[in-house]
């Protein structure tokens, strides 16, 4: 069985300050982990993915995430928030093996205050 927990449903930051969106996962196998972003009325867009290579993963728009197996975490960070970062962010786990089930977290809504 696998699951994803996004610890914060809403995060509010000031423009220019760091962003931290938290994600913990559980999986029976070595999982692949992803972060997707969804802007209002837009489709889901891949930000970055972890697939058992480097534990620090860099994505688009200055985001990065660090896979920490000991903490079963995959938190998303960005050094300096931009107004355009305001969106909903989803942490996603995908299993390996014959059936690669994909499970979404409930999402974290990021608000950026000018």
């Amino acid at each position: 069985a696998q699951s994803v927990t996004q610890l914060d449903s809403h995060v509010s930051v000031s423009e220019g300050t760091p962003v931290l969106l938290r994600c913990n996962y559980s999986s029976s196998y070595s999982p692949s982990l992803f972060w997707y972003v969804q802007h209002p009325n837009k489709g889901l867009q891949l930000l970055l993915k972890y697939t058992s290579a480097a534990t620090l993963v860099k994505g688009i728009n200055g985001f990065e995430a660090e896979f920490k197996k000991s903490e079963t975490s995959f938190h998303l960070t960005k050094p300096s928030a931009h107004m355009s970062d305001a969106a909903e962010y989803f942490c996603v786990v995908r299993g390996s093996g014959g059936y690669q089930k994909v499970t979404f977290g409930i999402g974290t809504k990021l608000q950026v205050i000018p």
Partner: protein
Amino acid sequence: GAGVSQSPRYKVAKRGQDVALRCDPISGHVSLFWYQQALGQGPEFLTYFQNEAQLDKSGLPSDRFFAERPEGSVSTLKIQRTQQEDSAVYLCASSLPGLDFSGANVLTFGAGSRLTVL
């Protein structure tokens, strides 16, 4: 095509009507997923196909929901006798499986079909 195409983008149905939502995955993508995203919620898994085989339909909320992918490419999600609680955006995603069936391949999502049941 270049991306995952879903149609219709918007559908308004009267309660009790049947609806059919279509997904055209990226050519060659073996894996296909359907998700239901209610307003303000994250996507909830509905069903998964590998080629034409429906490997998991555990997320379908009731027997009013039915999905098929007869030739392993285009998929249709059908909802019979729609209810107001069926109102949501229905997302389709496709991907390649890894050669070793790793989960490394990225899901590419369509823009979704927004269903409103009155």
